[in-house]
């Protein structure tokens, strides 16, 4: 059984301008101990998807439907107190900005000890020694001394480690990380990704990693979901996605990446801008920007269906399989640059 099974998730916000469909029929699964990468440009609905699963949306403006089955129990239908008991214990979350989850007026040690006490019935000294262990595990130098420091006394990278320590202290089965390395230098990013990998091996946690960087996905994900305009447009194992990306939006994303491993003279350009979620385009959401668009693309929404014959590889696109395979062959020699 999947650890997390998200089925047909919808989240709509009521705003002054109208209804914003921020998540529109999203489904995916996360297997125990595995890493799922969710990738997409800003505004594609990645964060809201995860906030919805965690029950963290503003209840006054957001309405939600669908299911998020965690070990078989629906998180969306769960009473608040049960959900609260899961959060920070069996499921935890890391945000891009560590200060959203660290309290600036308390020491790191106090916050870690509190997190332990929220979910475990142990003595103060045991909670403190667990806190110290986890700080050492995430690579905080001089942890014995730094445990009594305040968040502002840490650098950006160190603060991100502290937040990972906080997220891991109760050994969660599922860790949801929303762009945890986006604001960091490559060197710090590499340290944090390595750390997450090591801790995953040690604790067996599954990870959902939200990112806009396909490089980060390739580094750590077993499975990948590509989001566009509040929907899943491609879903595959990481190997499949990079070996045979199967629809024009993913081709565009890959081709627009400047890369260190080969030269391209011009990057691919996806024309136009991402769709409005107030008034999404008819038919395929990507059709106004797609160089392959046909008339059916304007009228009919393509289903998420097997793209290349593989059961695990799905995408939303009206192009037939033969055309796609020919295009993939043609494009991959140029590393997907110059799509347009």
């Amino acid at each position, binding site marked *: 059984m999947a650890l997390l099974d998200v089925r047909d998730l919808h989240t709509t916000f009521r705003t002054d301008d109208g209804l914003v469909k921020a998540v529109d029929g999203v489904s995916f699964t996360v297997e125990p101990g595995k890493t799922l990468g969710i990738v997409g*440009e*800003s505004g594609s609905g990645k964060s809201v998807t995860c906030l919805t699963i965690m029950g963290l949306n503003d209840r006054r403006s957001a309405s939600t439907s669908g299911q998020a089955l965690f070990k078989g129990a629906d998180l969306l239908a769960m009473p608040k107190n049960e959900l609260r008991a899961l959060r920070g214990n069996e499921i935890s979350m890391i945000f891009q900005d560590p200060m959203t989850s660290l309290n600036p007026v308390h020491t790191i040690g106090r916050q870690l000890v509190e997190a332990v006490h929220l979910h475990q019935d142990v003595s103060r000294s045991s909670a403190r020694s667990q806190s110290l262990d986890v700080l050492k595990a995430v690579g905080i*130098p001089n942890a014995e001394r730094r445990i009594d420091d305040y968040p502002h006394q840490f*650098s950006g*990278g*160190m603060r991100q480690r502290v937040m990972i320590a906080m997220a891991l202290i109760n050994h969660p089965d599922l860790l949801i990380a929303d762009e945890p390395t986006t604001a960091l*230098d*490559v*060197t*710090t*990013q*590499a*340290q944090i*990704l*390595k750390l997450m990998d090591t801790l995953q091996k040690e604790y067996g946690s599954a990870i959902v990693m939200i990112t*806009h*960087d*396909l*490089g*980060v*996905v*390739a*580094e750590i*994900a077993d499975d990948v979901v590509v989001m566009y305009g509040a929907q899943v447009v491609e879903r595959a194992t*990481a*190997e499949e996605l*990079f070996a045979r990306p199967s629809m024009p939006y993913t081709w*565009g*994303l*890959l*081709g*627009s*990446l*400047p*890369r*260190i*491993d080969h030269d*391209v003279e*011009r*990057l*691919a*350009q*996806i024309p136009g*801008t991402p769709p409005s979620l107030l008034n999404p385009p008819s038919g395929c959401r990507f059709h106004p920007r797609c160089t392959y668009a046909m008339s059916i693309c304007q009228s009919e929404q393509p289903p998420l269906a097997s793209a290349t014959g593989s059961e695990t590889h799905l995408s939303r696109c009206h192009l037939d399989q033969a055309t796609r395979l020919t295009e993939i062959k043609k494009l991959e020699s140029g590393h997907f640059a110059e799509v347009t």
Partner: protein
Amino acid sequence: MSDDLLVVEGLKKHFPVTRGIIFQRQVAAVKAVDGVSFTVKRGETLGVVGESGCGKSTMARCIMRLIEPTAGSVVFDGREITGLSRHELRPIRREMMMVFQDPYASLNPRKRVGAIVGEALEVHKIGTATETKRRVQELLEIVGLNPEHYNRFPHEFSGGQRQRIGVARALAINPKLIVCDEPVSALDVSVQAQILNLLKDLQKEFGLTYVFIAHDLNVVRHISDRVLVMYLGHAVEVATRDELYHHPRHPYTGALLSAVPVPNPELARARQQILLEGDVPSPLNPPSGCWFHPRCPRHHPGVCDVREPQLVAAAGDHRVACHFPLERWPMNAAEMAAPAASASTGAGTATGAP
């Protein structure tokens, strides 16, 4: 006319740290830029990389004379520009422009796009109102915006469009040099690709010279002809792009390259990363000897913590400041930690007695 458009020598910027309320006295200095030298040839792009806090922006602001360097010389188009008065700088200001990282903060929200793009024309009193308007519309078209949007405000544009406005503004009076400080760091990949393509096209069309600062090594590789690697206020390696990416000599460059995520799961898993420990130290208290030694996997006690390495030629145009430069690349962590004995007599250490 010399081939070199910009020649920077021994550039330093120390920010004083003062104490006292009435009688302020300097108690220390933040050595943000501490002796950087390089040249930029006409029509080329010099990429500048380094972790945040390495002094890239401070260096850019010194070159532009937005702040006064503490020491060193900046020769632009054959003319020394440090020490020039505001008045003397005026004609030079027309020839060097800057594009900033944040397309939200760098445009005045209360000004219309026409006024923002035409600002330099106004300042330098070039052309009549009608001529300015025509030029601005032409510029908007060049950067791929609708010329009709002349009267709109910045908030009516997306992040990528705002960065195009920033580029149009920089182009307004046909500058020779554009210094781009992380111009695509805040943008999504698809928008980033649009701006990078635009900058390359403009360079070809108008023969522009760029100093392009970024912390993303993929981006820098894509756009640069030569690359300067900075660490803690110092230039630690300078080389042509291919030299730098295929044969890095400085361990810091090697570590940066190995940390870049590669969008290829097989490659990503096969390669050995060289992970640096900790953060960039504070430029308030820089380490002794080589600035990089506390984080360097090949740190050699007695040498690296004592002697400051000089930026010297390793091969041809390739310069590196290291006592034990890398012998080859790629390298795994163990090879990185054990420099060949011969390296100690290599180019990087010929710097005289401690």
